[in-house]
């Protein structure tokens, strides 16, 4: 995080449209890097080395790096797809594929989420590029939520993690689809375009520009941007993962309502990827099946690394509102489905 503060050069380098960049801006990263090194050397001298070698801090580093490494292939896949969609796919393709009326496009987009077998990190940039190509945001958000939650890999791993209870798989499918469709409709009814960062409303291919060059630049920008936010999310998730004792949570497992909320909260802070969360849910044996369902419905849709990614892509004011609303809808949806099926 402090890297961000100590290197104030990037925004300077970004906008200087009139007379080119000042001469100093290219040496500033070097100065920044040197001062960071100097700070590190100072910190090292004052005991940072010993602190970094503490068992809890080492576990934190491992979990942080693990979340980042695990998400990288999915993030790169997602930004490649989104770059390709923006540069090569004409807007009218989506207008033909999706129903004209947004209210109908939402459930179609929810079900289409089955087709993207990736984790949640891939779906954020793809949803972004769909919006840029003129897909109604409500449908793109329904897709964003359902893609990591209901794809075949996730459903299979759920079946493996809960052997002998196919109802858990069905409940997960139904509750996730319902949540994503409801969120799409909610956006249709209440969403405001100004919550979205302006860049999201840009169009893709510009006449006259090279499509390949647009693809490359789009990929480079989206990857670096989302990658930084991914690391931020991994920092936060690893902090909770390592430092919050599980015993605190287990003591809350007795009350049925509280246990649903506790596991929903755990899903937000742990940021386990959607292909693995069923195994974690299966291990939370002290909790009711409905609470574990809530863990699996909330996890792929709202978690710390995902919120960071959304804040980076769509803007902070969007990410906060959208994640809060999604969490509420997902918990209700899981509770109703669990009461009905489990």
């Amino acid at each position, binding site marked *: *995080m402090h*890297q*961000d503060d100590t*290197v104030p050069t*990037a*925004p*300077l*380098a*970004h906008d200087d449209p009139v007379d*080119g*960049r000042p001469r100093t801006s*290219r040496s500033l*990263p070097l100065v920044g890097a040197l001062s960071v090194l100097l700070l590190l050397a100072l910190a090292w001298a004052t005991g940072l080395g010993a602190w970094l070698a503490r*068992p*809890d801090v*080492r*576990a934190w*580093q*491992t*979990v*942080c*790096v*693990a979340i980042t*490494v*695990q998400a*990288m*292939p999915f993030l*790169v896949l997602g930004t490649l797809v989104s770059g390709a969609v923006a540069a090569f796919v004409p807007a009218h393709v989506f207008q033909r594929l999706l129903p004209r009326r947004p209210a109908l496009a939402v459930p179609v987009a929810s079900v289409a989420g089955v087709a993207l077998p990736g984790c949640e990190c891939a779906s954020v940039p793809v949803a972004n590029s769909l919006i840029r190509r003129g897909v109604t945001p409500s449908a793109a958000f329904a897709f964003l939520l359902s893609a990591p939650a209901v794809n075949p890999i996730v459903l299979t*791993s759920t079946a493996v993690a809960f*052997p002998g209870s196919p109802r858990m798989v069905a409940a997960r499918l139904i509750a996730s689809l319902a949540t994503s469709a409801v969120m799409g409709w909610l956006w249709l009814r209440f969403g405001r375009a100004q919550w979205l960062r302006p860049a999201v409303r840009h169009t893709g291919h510009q006449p006259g520009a090279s499509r390949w*060059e647009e693809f*490359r*630049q789009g990929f*480079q*920008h989206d*990857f*670096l*941007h989302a*990658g*930084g*936010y991914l*690391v*931020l999310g*991994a920092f936060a998730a*690893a902090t909770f993962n*390592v430092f919050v*004792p*599980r015993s605190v949570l287990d003591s809350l497992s007795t009350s049925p309502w509280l246990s649903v909320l506790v596991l929903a909260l755990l899903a937000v802070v*742990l*940021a*386990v*990827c959607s*292909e*693995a969360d069923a*195994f*974690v849910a*299966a*291990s939370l*044996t002290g909790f009711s099946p409905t609470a574990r369902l809530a863990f699996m419905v909330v996890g792929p849709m709202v978690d710390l690394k995902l919120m960071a990614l959304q804040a*980076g892509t769509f803007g902070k004011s969007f990410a906060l509102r959208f994640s809060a609303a999604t969490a509420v809808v997902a918990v209700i949806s899981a509770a109703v489905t669990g009461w009905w099926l489990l």
Partner: protein
Amino acid sequence: MKHPVPAVLLLLVGAALLRITLFGDVALRYVQEPLRPYLAVTGAVLILAAALSRVRDGRGDGHGPPRTAWLLVPPALALLCWAPPALGSYTAARNNPKIVADYDHFDPLPTHGAVHLSLTEFTARVQQEEAQSLRGRTVVLSGFVTPRTDGAWDLSRLLVSCCAADSQSLTVRMHGIHSPAADTWVTVTGTWHPSGTLGTTSAAVALNVDSLQRIPEPKRPYVDRPPA
């Protein structure tokens, strides 16, 4: 005008991914084996993008990177220079215990000699096997040392399904020998510690240790294998 920073960042992350997948088994401290080829491809894609970025941005308006992209630097540098170790006793002591699935049947043990078991199978045989085939048998297990607050210690394994953030722990309580240093990987030989009824959930998942041998950390630290 060239802007070098985006290319450098792409190169750094790409190099870090190639380093942990192609040169050694560092990646297996964080993720499972099946993801490894995808990580290597991802690293190659990023390095290619870095190379193209240098070529193309040479012509025209180079962009600085988004400010948050600097956050990619610490994990990438860490992987290149000082890769964090696999999770160990600190995590095992605080994790959810892994639930050992119900076994449909147990293969007959070899008729004589010591029995080499994974911690999963040992736990299952102790708590599920009605035939009690472990009774009186010498068992060999391996894992790492997790000291307990009461002075005793556990032999532990961490199991991971996707990445190290979802680890769950398997533990077997050790009796009769002093605890080696935390996180030491060991192979132990001993017999079931009689407490409760063998073959039921009342049986203690515990071992009376006769001998202990240090072993190097296995290549795949999160895969529960019987000792060789």
